[in-house]
């Protein structure tokens, strides 16, 4: 077991992780930053973000308007102090990226262009065609590579946090190339590992989005917040589930049912296709449930019609999704509508952090989708997540740097490292069990898809909980076929399955407890929002018996909750 020592270790190299690394490295040349990622940075799921990044840049828009849109979109579960901070910091992040070389789409006079997006009452989505996340990532990666005090550990899989006296002192990680477990000593650790939507069958997410950091922090004692709130994106491509950007509707695309009807007129007559995602996803699911969807070989679907935009506009503004639709669904959007249906897309919930991105464990920070700060409340608006990653990625880097400069290293607990080695190599790799990853994984995804989807009931959630727990029991008997060291993907899949099973359970438990409907969490048995009892955040704490729930109030500064209409 070797030891690696860095002032700050950032786990994850998507938009939040890279932005954190840059901020920390720029805070002081004295600070030594490590970025650990299980995949090469530019392979991170952030490259899949398509439509844009929200920021107030132009006359006619205002911080208050962006904040209000966000708070209303969040169904009033967002912490308003955080939202106010967020909207004020976002524009600088757009400019930073621009100065580093991001190829933002431009207006005729050469300024950064902005497009409309769902739930935003001003066109404030800065975009790089429909490859916004991709270009942000490559820009951040380019910038990070110029900073000499950042070391990248590419293809290292973090397995656990080392915590002493409620203080993060390091972590353990497997170097994939050698298969060896190593210990890292750090003063501050930033979790930036992204979402966990791979717990679902039909999802927009990369294979690698398995919520590692959330589970690792949770097991180390940090609570997970608002995990019942899972966003379903209205336009997942059928059959693979791959994202078709909301920008397609921002540019004027229609949603049609099998009768050729723009059905959104019945659900959000004013905003139509640009209502927030929770509302559209429910509308689509209703159309499907009530038999008005198209029927195809891959099940029911809704049509996203872009034909009226014309080839030129599609090529200029939506080139990626045209290519993706052709390559993966055999449909050219210039010629025919794209088959879509709602897909699990985003976790509003995550590691509980305060406005400074601090978790309750000293020295442990979290940013981006793996965190819950909470900007997005019960439902995130499109383009607010890349903005969140940039803003709070930067904040986490700055805060971690301040913290690291004021603290000294602590010894890492050797016994815990040895215990972790034993857990993985003897407990998992060495075990001759008879359960395999695909069976348990697919079962979990099916349960989540069938019973913890857009419309939920107490009864189904109960069933789901029972079944997930059964799967966890079966998991104890898991077997890794590959007994080798280097690039043992079988072992990695088992560790990821372990993480996702934990998160599936937390999601179900949190959803079961919340007996109201708010934002993306819709209970058929409790169809109304209940501010009297539920205007509060869920906190799930790890115990051996399963999550223990607590609640904390929502911070309200300016905007009193009202009925949410679009």
């Amino acid at each position, binding site marked *: 077991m070797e030891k690696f020592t860095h002032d700050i270790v950032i786990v994850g190299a998507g938009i939040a992780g890279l932005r954190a690394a840059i901020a920390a490295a720029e805070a002081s040349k004295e600070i030594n930053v490590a970025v650990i990622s299980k*995949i090469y940075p530019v392979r991170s799921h952030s490259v899949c973000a398509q439509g844009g990044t929200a920021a107030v840049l132009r006359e006619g828009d205002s911080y208050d308007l962006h904040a209000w849109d966000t708070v209303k979109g969040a169904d009033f579960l967002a912490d308003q102090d955080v939202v106010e901070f967020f909207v004020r910091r976002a524009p600088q992040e757009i400019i930073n990226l621009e100065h580093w070389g991001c190829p933002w789409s*431009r207006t*005729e006079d*050469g*300024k950064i262009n902005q497009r409309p997006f769902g739930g935003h009452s001003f066109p404030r989505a800065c975009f790089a065609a429909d490859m916004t996340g991709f270009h942000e990532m490559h820009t951040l990666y380019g910038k990070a*590579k110029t900073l000499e005090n950042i070391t990248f550990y590419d293809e290292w899989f973090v397995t656990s946090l080392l915590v002493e006296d409620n203080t993060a002192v390091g972590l353990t990680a497997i170097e994939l190339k050698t298969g060896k477990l190593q210990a890292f000593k750090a003063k501050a650790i930033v979790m930036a590992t992204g979402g966990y939507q791979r717990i679902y069958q039909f999802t927009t997410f990369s294979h690698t989005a398995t919520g590692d950091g959330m589970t690792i922090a949770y097991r180390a004692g940090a609570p997970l917040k608002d995990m019942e709130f899972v966003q379903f994106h209205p336009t997942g491509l059928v059959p693979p589930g791959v994202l078709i950007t909301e920008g397609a509707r921002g540019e004027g695309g229609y949603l049609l049912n099998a009768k050729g009807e723009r059905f959104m007129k019945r659900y959000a007559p004013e905003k139509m296709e640009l209502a927030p995602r929770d509302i559209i996803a429910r509308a689509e699911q209703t159309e499907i449930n009530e038999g008005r969807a198209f029927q195809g070989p891959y099940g029911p679907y809704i049509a996203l019609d872009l034909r009226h935009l014309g080839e030129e506009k599609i090529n200029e503004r939506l080139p990626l999704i045209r290519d993706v639709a052709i390559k993966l669904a055999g449909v050219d959007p210039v010629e025919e509508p794209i088959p879509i249906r709602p897909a699990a897309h985003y976790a509003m919930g995550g590691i509980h952090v305060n406005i400074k991105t601090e978790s309750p464990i000293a020295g442990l920070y979290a940013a981006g989708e793996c965190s819950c700060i909470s900007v997005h409340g019960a439902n995130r608006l499109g383009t607010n997540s890349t903005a969140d990653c940039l803003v709070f990625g930067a904040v986490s880097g700055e805060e971690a740097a301040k913290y690291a400069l004021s603290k000294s290293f602590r010894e890492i607990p050797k016994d815990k490292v040895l215990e972790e080695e034993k857990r993985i190599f003897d407990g998992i790799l060495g075990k001759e069990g008879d359960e395999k990853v*695909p069976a348990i994984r697919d079962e979990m995804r099916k349960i989540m898809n069938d019973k913890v989807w857009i419309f939920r009931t107490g009864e189904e959630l109960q069933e789901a909980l029972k079944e997930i727990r059964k799967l966890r029991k079966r998991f104890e008997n898991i077997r890794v076929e590959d007994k080798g060291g280097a690039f043992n993907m079988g072992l990695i899949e088992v560790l990821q399955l372990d993480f996702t099973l934990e998160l599936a359970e937390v999601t179900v438990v949190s959803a079961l407890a919340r007996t109201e409907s708010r934002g993306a969490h819709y209970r058929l048995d409790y169809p109304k929002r209940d501010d009297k009892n539920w205007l509060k955040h869920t906190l799930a704490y790890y115990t051996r018996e399963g999550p223990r729930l607590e609640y904390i109030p929502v911070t309200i500064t300016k905007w009193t909750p009202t009925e949410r209409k679009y």
Partner: protein
Amino acid sequence: MSTKVEKIVEFEIHRFDPETKRRYVSTYKVPIRKGMTLLDALMYIRDNLDGTLAFRSSCRMGICGSCGIQVNGKPMLACYTQVLHLNADKLVIEPLQNFPVIKDLVVDIEPFFGTYERIKSVLIKPEEELKKSVEFIQLPKDLKKIWDLALCTKCGICYSSCPAAIDERFLGPSTLTTNYRFIIDTRDEGAEERLKVTADNIWLCTSCNSCTLFCPKEVDASSSVVEERSLIVETGNIPRTVMDVLTSVMRYHNPMGRYPTKRMEWAEGLNIKTYPNVNKADVLYFVCCLTAYDTRHQEIAKSMVSLFNRLGIDFAVLGNEEWCCGDHILRLGEKGLFEELAEHNVSMFKKFEANKIVTLSPHCYDAFKNQKPYSDIGLNVQHYTQLLADAIEKGKLAPSKPINKKVTYHDPCFLGKRNGIFEEPRKILESIKGLELVEMKRNRENSFCCGGGAGRVWTEDAPVEKRPCVNRVKEALDLGVEVIATACPFCVSTLEDATKVLDVENKIVVKDIAELVKEVL
């Protein structure tokens, strides 16, 4: 999702076990349904047939660049390729080339990412400019110039198929393209610094076009390299070897620095119709500088004359008025000089009223067919292999003597990759009695460049092991062939050099197809 199984496809996967350092092959039968990608198939194998198979993947929408593999010799993204679209019952799956293998389909891509450490992928501007809190203005038309080049996902596919990348001095197609994308970014002020990084290694690129051909995002890296070179040529900071080539062409209209008046020496005694003594013929035979001046290559030029005569074709040459077609010059980035050469040749073609041009070199062929100003006048141009294949098919030319040898064919990039002429040369070889044609593993579109393109035939300075021609000849030697046949004077030149430096001239010879056909008539 259960649509019906369309067919069963056999996956032959070339694997490597890092524990035992053993290379081996596993074969799996995969039921393929509509919509299934190669990645889905690999996942099917890992989930259902073999849990030990290692490969990378993430986004499964062609944007993260994780899953590059070789499929039937061709590099591609597994997630962005439908199995049914490959129209195959069997697929040979291998890891990407040019990288050390870690395990199975997982290669060590570190050397590729390492090249990015040598450039700056961020705007270079004065500090005070970067402190401004408003955006730099960039007009849509200026954004457009960099957009397509900025689509590179860093998947490494270009690097894997790049003949120059076997020399680690070379930055590689992706990194050079990113460097160029910043140079032409209207916001950037670091061109000088950026060009310095490439000035000593960019000349290793042979313009073989593999990078552009295989890029999943259709980034034209090959052209970017040429554009970047032309900026370096403008600065004058170019290696001596490159300078010599350019100077020779400028002075003598051929890259070898020979007197134009000696251009026809090869044809002495052959009685060939020559401009300006003759100003009309059915076919204009464009000889190429290398074939006209180099003693070894003159044999090829002469062979072609015999073939024309045998076919009874009325042909003529431009004589001393044939100037270098300029292809190598263009690829070296000297656009002005290329234009000068091209304008001369075009004016000669017009004066000659050339109805049909036959070239010996694929480089002349490509220039006349695809490059302005040649392409503007709509020339009827043929590579000689097209002419011969057609004549053989129509029974006008029948090779009679046998060649009882094992022969492989090396595809010239400018004939194959750039112009899709793969089958004609093979048809010619197959028509020769006794000749056993065996393919190298890397053939046709996946062929490995000889290393002679874009002037490198004259500027080669790589250590022996890092020369593409040496790499290629070794591949042929492994096949146990006695002859490498090809159809390009530059391929003949580089490959023959390789047989010399490898000291295998007694084992293997390099022949142009024109020579082989002449031998058997």
